[in-house]
């Protein structure tokens, strides 16, 4: 209990002091995770919709695979991306290792299955309702998939938030491909890991509280936006 109270005090102290390093770390964390979410959404929504609406051999195997990939261990993703971006690896020439873009790439790979799989489920459920009417009107293929995708937008917000949650919470991938370099690739989760390993548990916990508070705020905002829009559109 004592450590938790100290942690809360540390958290409040951190925020109140307006510490510049903390601000830098928070900004980097948000920009990496939000970028990954944006990319994964751009790629994952069409992918999920295509699988939901399409009919092709091996479809069921792909669905199972996609669902399974939701559980990709972050540290494994980090390792694979590291080996790809390492100077000794195939994409070493890009010089991306130990930079924020590498972290965005790793996180995008990590959360793409989550967004795609949840989207697939939502769209598949909606497709059952819409399919006959849309085909009657002459919509099919990509056009029909996009129509259903847009119509499912409120359920899809949840899928995107799930991706955001995973990205902002993970430490394994960004640690390996980012290197936790002070002032360059240090994000909230890697800072928490560092402070923990330095034995400064209240500070680590305090940072954890700050991180959770930010994610909570983002989720609350998304929920309010969704509610308002839903009231309008039904």
């Amino acid at each position, binding site marked *: 209990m004592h450590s938790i109270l100290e942690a809360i005090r540390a958290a409040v102290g951190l925020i109140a002091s307006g510490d510049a390093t903390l601000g830098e770390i928070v900004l980097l964390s948000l920009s990496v995770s939000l970028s990954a979410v944006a990319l994964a959404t751009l790629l994952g929504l069409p992918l999920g919709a295509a699988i939901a609406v399409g009919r092709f051999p091996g479809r069921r195997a792909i669905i199972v695979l996609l669902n399974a990939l939701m559980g990709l261990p972050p540290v494994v993703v980090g390792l694979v991306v590291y080996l790809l971006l390492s100077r000794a690896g195939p994409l070493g020439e890009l010089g991306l290792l*130990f930079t*924020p873009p590498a972290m965005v790439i790793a996180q995008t790979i990590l959360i793409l299955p989550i967004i795609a799989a949840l989207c697939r489920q939502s769209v598949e459920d909606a497709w059952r309702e819409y399919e006959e009417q849309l085909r009657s009107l002459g919509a099919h293929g990509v056009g029909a998939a996009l129509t259903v995708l847009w119509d499912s937008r409120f359920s899809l917000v949840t899928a995107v938030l799930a991706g955001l949650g995973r990205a902002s919470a993970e430490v394994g991938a960004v640690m390996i491909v980012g290197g936790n370099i002070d002032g*360059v690739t240090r994000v909230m989760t890697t800072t928490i890991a560092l402070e923990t*390993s330095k*034995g400064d548990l209240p500070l680590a916990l305090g940072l954890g509280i700050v991180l959770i508070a930010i994610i909570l705020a983002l989720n609350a905002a*998304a929920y309010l936006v969704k509610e308002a829009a839903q009231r309008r559109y039904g």
Partner: protein
Amino acid sequence: MGLMWRIFLVLLLAAPAYGQQKFITVASTTSTEQSGLFKHLLPAFERKTGIQVRVVALGTGQAIDLGKRGDADVAFVHDKEAEEKAVAEGAFVDRREVMYNDFIVVGPKSDPAKAKGRDVVAGLKKISEAKAPFASRGDKSGTHSAELRLWKEAGIDPQQGRGSWYRETGSGMGPTLNTASGMNAYALVDRGTWLSFKNRGDLAILVEGDKRLFNQYGVMLVNPRKHPDVKKAEGMAFIDWVTSAEGQKTIADYKIGGEQLFFPNAGKASEVNVGKK
């Protein structure tokens, strides 16, 4: 949804501009970083040369491997044997000694194994005889190699105690200390990490001052012939500075609670015994 896009764009533009400034990547160890030395040392170098130093902190073995893969420009580690081997293999060039610090053995204040004293080998013998819990890093690090050398000198094979009193955490100094603190175990730790470690629990310094506990740091450049992309000029600038009078003084000036952590010894023939026979 539109709002989220706008926020993302703002953050993307606000993200720190990297790659605009000259920089080198230095592979070092977690214990060195956690001692706080770099926060003290690197700004001075940056001010003088305008070169940003990006430190990736890993275990010594991993740091050397990072250099071998060409993902770093310079290695700054503390395992002379491993460093010299890497140079002999051609992975690094221009190895220079920089500074040394020392290890200490910490353990429960009550010292059940009666290990306290100046003789680390005797102390380890007592710990093994008493089968008192000992937390080892077990992670190919400089600290871990030093620990293994000391056990060897004591004529003890700690693997005999594996699973009972000898606990390998496979992790960095901090987590190992957390574990030691949590189970009231003995551990070998570098003084720098100990001084800044905040979760000591019931642990205290029990063995210190033995010459065999001295820990030599070396700095070396990744071989440009093996990895042409290595930033040779900037890397050498760092190596030169850190072994120069100015760099050495900056190292000596780093203190925690009035205590100096690292003792610069560049260029001096190594009188210091790194603990190997």
